[in-house]
C-alpha cells in the first residue's frame, strides 16, 4: 500500500467556480492523452534502424519544440520500423481529418520546422515529405 501521509506544504487556495473551469481546461489538455484522443498525432519511427540513425534526438527536438510552442493537444507516439530504413529518421504527422504525411531524412532542425509549419500552421512541408497516404500505426 502506498501509505503516504499527505500533509499540505503550501496552503492551497480555496477554489471559486471560475478557478474550477481554469484547472479543468489546463489539466484536460494534458490529460486528453489518457483517452487516446487529441487534435492529431506525431509518430516518430523508432525501430532499431531509426534509433541508430538518430531518432532519439528527433524525439527530443520534437518534444522540446511542441513545449516551446505551447502545443498541448497533440499526441506523440512511437512505432516500430516503418520499412524504409534507408531514409531514417522518419516521422509521420497525422492531423484529425487529414491524411497522414510521412517525413524522411529528418534532422532536429527539420522536425522543428515541421512543428511550426504543419502541426501549428496546417501546411504540409513538401520538401521534407515522402508520401501522403494511409498507413496503419501499431
Amino acid at each position: 500500500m502506498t501509505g503516504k501521509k499527505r500533509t499540505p506544504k503550501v496552503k492551497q487556495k480555496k477554489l471559486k467556480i471560475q478557478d474550477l473551469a481554469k484547472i479543468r481546461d489546463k489539466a484536460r489538455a494534458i490529460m486528453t492523452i489518457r483517452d487516446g484522443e487529441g487534435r492529431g498525432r506525431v509518430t516518430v519511427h523508432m525501430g532499431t534502424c531509426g534509433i541508430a540513425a538518430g531518432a532519439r534526438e528527433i524525439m527530443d527536438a520534437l518534444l522540446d519544440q511542441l513545449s516551446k510552442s505551447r502545443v498541448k493537444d497533440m499526441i506523440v507516439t512511437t512505432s516500430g520500423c516503418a520499412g524504409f530504413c534507408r531514409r531514417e529518421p522518419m516521422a509521420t504527422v497525422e492531423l484529425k481529418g487529414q491524411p497522414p504525411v510521412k517525413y524522411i531524412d529528418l534532422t532536429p532542425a527539420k522536425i522543428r520546422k515541421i512543428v511550426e509549419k504543419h502541426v501549428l500552421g496546417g501546411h504540409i512541408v513538401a520538401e521534407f515529405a515522402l508520401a501522403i497516404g494511409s498507413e496503419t500505426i501499431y
Partner: protein
Amino acid sequence: MKKYRTHLLVCAGTGCVSCNSFKIKEALEQEVQKRNLQNEVLVIATGCNGFCERGPILLVQPEGIFYQQLKVEDVPRLVEEHLLKGRPVKKLMYIPPSEKEPIPKMKDIEFFKHQRLIVLRNRGRIDPEKVEEYIAFDGYEAMAKALTKMTPEEIISEISASGLRGRGGAGFPTGKKWDVCRKEKKTPKYLICNGDEGDPGAFMDRSLLEADPHAVLEGMVIGAKAIGAEKGFIYIRHEYPLALQRMEIAILQAKEYGLLGKNILDTGFNFDIEVVQGAGAFVSGEETALIASVEGRIATPRQRPPYPAQKGYMGMPTVINNVETWGTVPNIIRRGAAWFAGLGTETSKGTKIFSLVGKINNTGLVEVPMGITLRDIVYGIGGGIPDGRKFKAVQIGGPSGGCLPSSKLDLPIDYESLTAAGSMMGSGGMIVMDEKTCMVDIAKYFLNFLRDESCGKCVSCREGTQRMWEIVKRITEGKGKQSDLALLEELATATMDASMCGLGQTAANPVLSTLRYFKREFEIHIKEKRCPAGVCLALIQYEVIPDRCTGCLACKTSCPQDAIRGTLKDVHLIDQEKCIKCGACYEACKFEAIETERDPAIRIVERAR
C-alpha cells in the same frame, strides 16, 4: 502539470495490488529513469481497470495498448521494446481463450467493447489520489451547477425524471426518497453513503471507492443541497483498507481545495463528511442497522416505518444511499435526466455495475445498460465458460438473490424481470456456475453465510436460516428424507414472510430459487443418494483409472492419510475407508510432470452404495 508523450496507467485496485501491481509500478518508474525517459513517460497508479481475471494490468496511452498478467520481470523488456523502440510486446498482450492472435488495443477486446461506462467512466484513467485529474474530466462541474444554478426542488425533480433507482439492491426511486426527506421539517438532516457491501463475490462499490472517490463526494454534496443537510457520513466496511485510505485522502484534498467543508466554492453552502468504519457484519448493510452502527450501537435493524428519511440518524431525517447511487448523481446533473432516461428499460433506467465472477473466462467488473440480456453478459462480455464446460446457472444479487438456469439466459436485466424470475438485482453480484457445481451445495453455502450473518433478533431468521441449513446439510450428506423438500419450502416461506428486515426476508431466495429450477438435483440427492456434479463429499469418492495409471507414486506421496496403496510401475489403489477426499492425489496426478498438465489418472465418481 508537465506534458508527457506517454502515460503508463498501472491498475492499482485491490485485486491487482494483491498481485504486486505496486511493485510493478515501482519497477516501471525505475526502468523509465534508467532509460532516461522520465521527462517523456509518466507512470500513474489508477483504480481498478475492471478486467480482474487478467491482472496485473497496464494500459499504455495514447495508443491504448493493453498489457495483462504482468510480472516484475517483464518490466525491463517492456520499457525497452515498447517505449524505446516503439515495438509493443505481443507476448504480454491479451489473447482470447481458444484463439491465437493477441488483441493489442483495449477498445477492441470483447470484455471492454460492450460496456457503457458512466459511473465507472474514470476507472483506469485517473489517479484517484489527485483531485486535479478528477477535475480534468469535468469533475465537480455538476456540483458547481447544482450549488449555483439549481434550487433543491429542481435537483430533486431532475433526479426523479431520470428514473434513478437505488443501486444497493432494493431499487427504491432515489428522487422520491430525497423528496420525502426534504419535506421533513426537523433539522439537522443527514446524508449517509452505504459502503458496507457484504455480498460474497461483490466488489462494485469497492472498485468505485478505490478508483474514483471524488465521484461519490460530488454526488453527496449535490444530495446535501437537495435535502438541506450539513453533515454526511461515508460508511465503509473495515475489510476495505485501500478504499478507506483513498477516501480519506480524497476528502482531505477536497477540503483543501474548498470543494467540501465550509463555504464550498465560495457559494456559502456548508457540508462536511466523516468516514466511519464498519465492524465486520453483513447485516450492517441494512439501512437501519447501519444507522445504529454509525450511532455507536450494535448493528440491529429496527421496524420501519418510520423510515430513515423521516427518522434516521439520531432520530433526524436522513437520506441513506448506496455508493453506486451517489456515483451516478453527478453524471445525471451534468448531462441531464433525459440523457440518463434514454438508457435502459421502461422501469429500470441507466446503467448498472455487475461483478462477474465464478466459472467464467473474463472475471471482472462490468458496467452495462439495463435491459442487456444475461446471454450477452455471460457469453459476450464474459467470454463464456472456461475449460469447455457448460453453463448451469447464474446467481444474481448475492445471498439475497436466486439462481437462474440456462432457460433464463435471454432474460433482460432489470429490477422487475429478475424479481419475477425468482432472483433479485441486489447489489449486482453475478456468480456463474458450470455443470461441476452442485446446486444443493450452493444452497448450503449461502444458507451457511446467512445463518452466520443473521443479527439474531427475529425467530424466523435466526432459527429459520439455521434449520434450513441443517436440512440442506443433511441432504448433501445423503441423509435427506422425502418430506424434507416440502418442509424446506414451508420453512422458507415462513422465514420470508415473518422476518423484519431484508436479510431475513430474502434469506429464503437461495433455497426457493434452487428448488424452483433444480428440484431434480435435490431429489437425486435424497432418493438416489447421488451428487451428479461430483461435489458433495459424502456422496463421491476418488478412484484410480487403471488404464491411465503409470504407477509413478505421485498420488501416494501426496496423500496425507496414507490411503493409497501401490508400488512403482503398478496400478495404484485408493483405500476408501481412509480417504478424506481432500483432493491432493488428484492435483498431484494432474501435475505430475512439473509445470505441464496432463490428463489425470484419478477421477471423481459417485460413491458406491
